[in-house]
């Protein structure tokens, strides 16, 4: 390849993906050894907080199961309240991970390698959190297996024309595929940990987990192919999952839900929220685990840009929703849409727009893309905004339905709040545990993109 000889101007050159001297060897020393060291005090404190919040959530889940979902604020006509808001919220958070690991992989965005593993792990934990909600929302979670089409003595089958059933398939497929993708990527890293591990139990656990991976080239050959295929499949999947989630709404006839823009609008929102969450957690990881050389300022900068782009798309989607409502000349749609901003829950509508469209515009400024404070403020705003967006879609649309006689203001109970909080507890507990026992950076993938990692002979042959 002669193109190498041509020097590109500075600003067109690909930026360095790591800072300082990073070699395969010291990468392993830096990343893989966390599992073998005693965690710092802060980790224990964090873990104590998150796990107690999680326990609170668990207790309230138990309470809900024992007494029934009457302990929530859901009543006629708002039967889809916190449970579904939280479900959509968490599934959305998950999307960033798959986007980073699959779509950016296909686009050969090599900066993804440093943050892919963490984002994938967050996907899995987020989908775990998401999975709880439809489960408890069915009221008798121990009968949730009724959702699956299996031959039964009741001689009934589920309705395959219902988006709710599509959802069951989409989310369970998404979870298993993400898990597989994550695990496959982890495999060589775990193999490396196995060889670094001291102590019998640890070694045995990592040995089993990596399935005896030995780095043979014939294995890499299939592995790379599998990874590429998985990335391609996961790309389609990630776009489909939130589309299917949006069908739960769009296929129904409730004004404010029945809109063709919903699938792309939901996918965008999901990526948006997910990136904000990843950005927030990455900042913490980068600081506490001392990874400034691997997760560089450049990474944070690109992530911020993605958030900015998504925010603009969200703004477009909101405008489009308003336009559709106006252009439809449908008085129910008019009333619902004006309700978003001047109804009983007017502040949620404005909060959504402010947090999702206005505040992220700060990322136009380089200063904001480089300062932790701004990044965290904006990411928090996005997370809040996206939660409230789902609140607006679900609660505000439902509480004024076609029949004025049944209009009713929805009020969540303490149990509702507690379970939401508990899901955050679960998420961060999992994140902390993950950071403890598995590599937070895809070392194998990083090694492959370090300077000089690939033989030059091949390059000149091409």
């Amino acid at each position, binding site marked *: 390849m002669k193109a190498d000889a041509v020097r590109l101007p500075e600003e067109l050159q690909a930026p360095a993906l790591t800072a300082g001297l990073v070699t395969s060897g010291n990468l392993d020393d830096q990343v893989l050894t966390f599992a073998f060291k005693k965690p710092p005090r802060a980790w224990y404190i964090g873990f104590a907080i998150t796990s107690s919040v999680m326990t609170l959530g668990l207790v309230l889940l138990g309470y809900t199961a024992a007494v029934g979902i009457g302990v929530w604020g859901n009543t006629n006509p708002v039967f889809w309240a916190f449970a579904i808001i939280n479900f959509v919220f968490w599934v959305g958070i998950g999307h960033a991970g798959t986007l980073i690991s699959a779509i950016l992989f296909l686009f050969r965005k090599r900066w993804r390698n440093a943050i892919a593993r963490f984002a994938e792990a967050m996907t899995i934990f987020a989908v775990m959190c998401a999975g709880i909600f439809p489960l408890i929302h069915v009221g008798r979670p121990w009968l949730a297996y009724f959702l699956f089409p299996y031959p039964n003595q009741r001689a009934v089958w589920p309705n395959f024309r219902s988006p709710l059933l599509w959802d069951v398939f989409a989310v369970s*497929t998404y979870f298993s595929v993400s898990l597989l993708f994550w695990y496959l990527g982890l495999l060589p890293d775990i193999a490396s940990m196995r060889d670094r591990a001291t102590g019998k139990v640890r070694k045995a656990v990592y040995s089993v987990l990596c399935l005896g991976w030995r780095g043979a080239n014939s294995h890499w050959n299939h592995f790379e192919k599998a990874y590429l295929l998985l990335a391609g499949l996961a790309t389609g*999947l990630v776009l489909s999952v939130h589309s299917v989630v949006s069908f739960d709404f769009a296929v129904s006839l409730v004004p404010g839900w029945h809109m063709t823009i919903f699938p792309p609008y939901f996918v965008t929102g999901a990526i948006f929220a997910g990136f904000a969450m990843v950005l927030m957690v990455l900042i913490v990881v980068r600081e506490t685990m001392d990874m400034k050389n691997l997760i560089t300022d450049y990474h944070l900068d690109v992530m911020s840009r993605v958030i900015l782009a998504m925010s603009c798309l969200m703004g477009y989607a909101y405008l489009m929703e308003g336009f559709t409502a106006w252009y439809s000349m449908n008085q129910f749609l008019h009333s619902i849409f004006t309700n978003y901003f001047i109804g009983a829950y007017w502040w949620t509508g404005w909060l959504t727009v402010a947090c999702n469209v206005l505040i992220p515009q700060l990322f136009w400024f380089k200063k904001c893309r480089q300062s932790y404070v701004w990044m965290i403020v904006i990411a928090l705003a996005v997370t809040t905004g996206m939660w409230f967006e789902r609140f607006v879609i679900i609660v505000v649309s439902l509480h004024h339905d076609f029949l004025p006689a049944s209009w009713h203001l929805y009020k969540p109970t303490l149990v509702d709040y507690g379970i939401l909080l508990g899901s955050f507890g679960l998420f961060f507990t999992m994140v902390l545990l993950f950071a403890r026992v598995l590599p937070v950076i895809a070392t194998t993938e990083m090694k492959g993109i370090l300077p000089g990692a690939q033989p030059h002979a091949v390059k000149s042959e091409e």
Partner: protein
Amino acid sequence: MTQPKSGDTFGVVGLFESADALMAAISKVREAGLGKVEAYTPYPVHGLDKALGQRRSPLGGMVMIMGVLGALTAFLFQWWISGIDYPIVTGGKAPTSWQAFVPIMFEVTVLFATFTAGLGMLFFLNKLPFFGHPVLHAKAISAITRDRFGLAIEAEGDAFDVAAAVRALESAGARPIEVISVPSFSGPMTARYLERSLLGIAIACAVSGYATYWAVKLFPVLPPTSHMLVQPRLDPQKPSAFFKDGHGMQLPVPGTVARGYLPLGVTSQEEAATLVNPLAVTQKVLEEGRQAYMNHCVVCHGPLANGVPTLTSAYGAKPANLQAQQFREYPDGKIYWAIVMGKNAMPSYAADLSEDDRWAVIHYLRALQRAQNAKPGDLAGVKFEAGSGQGSEGKAP
């Protein structure tokens, strides 16, 4: 192929510092033709498969086939269930219409394809998990998974010779070089140990699964499942705890009057004669009366109110001929009484007709009576417009 015994030489592995060095060495070592040459690297190195002469991965084809199979499976499954075995008509779609099956087809396609790609790669193509591989028990492995590039000549066929293999690797520049023998299966890290622990886990799963199965079977209605059975409700012939007196149904509060049943204030049809129709005769009232009459009275008293029912002869009673002199002279109040209280074979219509409707019916009845017994002077003063035949009974002076 005979099973290698522990202690046999598996091969010789040499380590290189960089991918470039490894690449350069491969062709030299392969030329020596001593055995199977395999590279062990910490990450996938591009171009090695070509240099080592390894075939392209057949995974793409496998995934393709399984993906198509997934789509077909999902389609046929849904089509059979929704169209044939348990047809549900939703949204007015034909039970076998396929469009709604697409989302699940897509998901199942992806599921089949990804699991083929992932698990097919691991278990089928790479033959993992395999914990007993000699390389895993060599010293070199911890350098290989870290940052060194291993090149191994593995004993295969008669040409293999340990000394020659060591020499070949040495001249290609490998440092250090290690002769690997098939590991002895003892100690905690061996394949057998791991296999045994996996078996242990499998047994534990089976036992706990079986225990759960029986627990659920034997105690199906523990709380909270049993909460479904303890809902507060009225059971027939059983006392209820809802009220103090043990009855589920309670008598209304004394003096309660049901809607539309305000007391008439009179106690017999004779007394009812004094009631006065509160409605004025208007087009609207007559129209309401007509509707009420058509809905409730016409079947028995006939459209002309002459007591000729539109019912078959199976209806035994004889509805009154309301055109008879007696009823033309009947006070409104007595008709009202008959509607509210019923009369012999005629049931009460109080439940069906509101206060206003009852009086409106009476006005209409009067109109019918008048229409059947019209006198020549009745139409004096009524102006006829062309084509206005309708509603003329209302325009009586």
